[in-house]
C-alpha cells in the first residue's frame, strides 16, 4: 500500500498517523512532498508484530521548498518470532534552504526471538539544512519485569505500562476515540508475549 501527499501551497501541512497491528505481511509507505515554502510534513507510526508477522513500514519526506520542516516518529514493537522494519527516506533538494528534519525510530523487542530493523536514508543537497536522526532499540526481558515485581507490580500490569508508555508519543496524535481503540488493539495483539 502506498499513499502520497503533496504540500503545494505555502504554509501547508500534512500529518500521517498510523497504527498497525495487522496482517501477516504488511508493507506501508505513505510519503509527503514538501513543495510549498514553509510547509510541514509529519509521520507518526506505531507498528506491532507478534507471532510470525512481518511488517515493513516507513515514509518519504521530500523537501523541495524553502523553510520546509518534517518530523518522523516511528515506534516498532516486536514480539514472538516477528520482524518489524522501518525504511525512511529524507531528501533535501538543492533549493530547499533552511529545511529541517527530525527522525526518531524506536524499536522495542519483547523477548529475544524477534527482530527490529531500521534503514534510514538521508540525502542532503543543501548546506543550510539541519537533519537529525535518532534511533534506539531496546529489549524487554525478565530483568525489567522483575524490577517491576520488586516494586509490587505484577507481570500483566508491567507489560501494559511499558507498551503504552512506549507508544504514547504517537497515540497522543490520534483523536481520543481512536486512541482508546488503538490502545486496546495493542494490548490484544501482545497478549501473553512476556512473562
Amino acid at each position, binding site marked *: 500500500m502506498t499513499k502520497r501527499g503533496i504540500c503545494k501551497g505555502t504554509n501547508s501541512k500534512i500529518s500521517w498517523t498510523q497504527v498497525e497491528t495487522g496482517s501477516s505481511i504488511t508493507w506501508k509507505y505513505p510519503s509527503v512532498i514538501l513543495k510549498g515554502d514553509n510547509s510541514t510534513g509529519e509521520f507518526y507510526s506505531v507498528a506491532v508484530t507478534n507471532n510470525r508477522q512481518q511488517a515493513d513500514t516507513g515514509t518519504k519526506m521530500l523537501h523541495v521548498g524553502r523553510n520546509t520542516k518534517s518530523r518522523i516518529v516511528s515506534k516498532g514493537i516486536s514480539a514472538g518470532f516477528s520482524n518489524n522494519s522501518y525504511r525512511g527516506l529524507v531528501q533535501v533538494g538543492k533549493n530547499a534552504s533552511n529545511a529541517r528534519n527530525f527522525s526518531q525510530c524506536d524499536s522495542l*523487542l519483547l523477548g*529475544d526471538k524477534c527482530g527490529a530493523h531500521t534503514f534510514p536514508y538521508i540525502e542532503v543537497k543543501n548546506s*543550510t539544512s*539541519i537533519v*537529525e*536522526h*535518532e*534511533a*534506539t*532499540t*531496546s*529489549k524487554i526481558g525478565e530483568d525489567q519485569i522483575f524490577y517491576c515485581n520488586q516494586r509490587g507490580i505484577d507481570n500483566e500490569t508491567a507489560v501494559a505500562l511499558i507498551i503504552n508508555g512506549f507508544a504514547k508519543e504517537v497515540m497522543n496524535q490520534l483523536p481520543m476515540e481512536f486512541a482508546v481503540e488503538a490502545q486496546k488493539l495493542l494490548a490484544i495483539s501482545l497478549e501473553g508475549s512476556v512473562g
Partner: protein
Amino acid sequence: MATIDYLEKEFEKLQATTGGQLSAFRQDAFTAFSRLGIPSSRNEEWKYTRVGLVFNKTFQFSEDDGSRFTAADLTKLKLPGSDEANEIVFLNGRFSSTLSTLRSQGLTLLPLEEAAQGAHSEFVATHFANSSKYLKDGINAMSTAFLSGAIFLDVKKGATIDHPVYIYNISDAREFNVLSQPRSLIKVGENAQVQLVETFVTIGSQESFTNQVMEMVVERDAITEYYKIQNDVPNANQVSTTHIRQTGKSYTHAVTISLDGGMVRNNLNLVLDAPNCEAHMYGLYFQKGKTHIDNHTVVDNVQPNCLSNELYKGILTDSATGVFNGKIFVRPLAQKTNAYQSNKNVLLSDTASVNTKPQLEIYADDVKCSHGCTIGQLDEEALFYLQSRGINEKRAKSMLLHGFSSDILEKIKLTPIRAYVEGLIDQRLEFDKE
C-alpha cells in the same frame, strides 16, 4: 622536512645517553615512526588536520636546567585555585620536579623510568604504551620514540584526593621553535577519587609544537574527573592525546575546553573494558581568527552494560575551522550498551567552517545508541525575539551564545576552573559586542 632529519640525529643521541627499561620501547617506536612518518591528509584520521604543514618549519627539543624558565615565570601562568592544588609541571615536554608540588595524601609521583623498576613495575609493563598504539600512528610513535622526562602518577587505592591535580604543559618558545612531548601514565586505583586539570601554555614569540600523550587506567569503583583547558596563543600547535582505559566498573567525567591556539588536535580515546562502566565526555570549542580545532573521540565498548554520553559544542567565527569525529564501537560482548553522542555547531561567519562525522560501529544486538549532529547559524527567530524586547543585536547574540555554551560549562564541577573558563568566554563575548 628539516625537523625529520633533526629527529633522526636526536634519536641516536638519546639512545646513546639514556639506557634503562624503556629504551626498547623507544627503539620500536622510532622504527615505527620512520616507517609511518607524520600523518598526511591521505590518512582518513587526519583528513582535515594537516599536521604535516606545521613540520615544514624547524622544531627542536629544548633542554632547560632551570635557569631560563623559573618559578617566578610559572607564578604568572597559574590557574586559579593553584595555591591549594597539587601541581605537576612539564617544561618543554619534560617533567620538572623543582616546579612541581604535591599537597595531598594518597598521591605518588615518580619518573616513569623509576616506576618501571619498583613496586609499580608490573603495572607499567602492562599499561605503558598499551592504549596508545604507538606502532600504528606516527604521532604517537614520535612521542614514544623520544620518551624522556615522562611521569607515573599513582592515585592510591581507596583514597579520596582532597585537592585537584593541575598539570601544566609549558613550552618556552622565546628563542626558537620548540618541540615538547609531555608523557604520563596515570593509575587511578580501586575506589579512589581524583580530579585532574590539564592546561597548555606557550611563552615567547616563536612557535611551539606540543605532542602530548597521557595514558590513564581507571580501576574498579574509581571516580575520575578530567578537565583539559586549552587557551594557548596562535603560535602554539598541539596534538593532545588522552587514553582512558576503565578496567573495572568505574566512572569517568571528561571536559575539553578549547578556546584558542594555532592548530589543535585532541584525541580522547576511552576503552570501557569492564561491565557497568560509565563515561561522560563533554567539549566546548570557541575559535576565532585562523585557528583550527579538531576533536577526535573514540568510545570502545568492550564489555556489557556500559553507559557513555558525549556532547560536544562548537562556536566558530572569522576563518576558524572545526572538526569533530566521534566514533563509537560496540563489540559483540557489549550487550545492553547505552551510547549517546551529539555534536552541535554554530557558525558565526561565512568563512568559518566545520566538518563533523559521527561514526557508529555496532556488533551487538541489544544496545541503545543515538547520535546527532547539527551545523547552523544563530537562531534568527530567537535573536529577533530578544531584539523585540529592547536588547540590541550584539548583546542579544552574546546572550544566545552564552546560553549555547552553558550546558557544557556547568559540567565543570571544580568551581574555580569553571569561573575561570566562564570569565574567558564572557570576555570574548564582550569583545564581540563592540
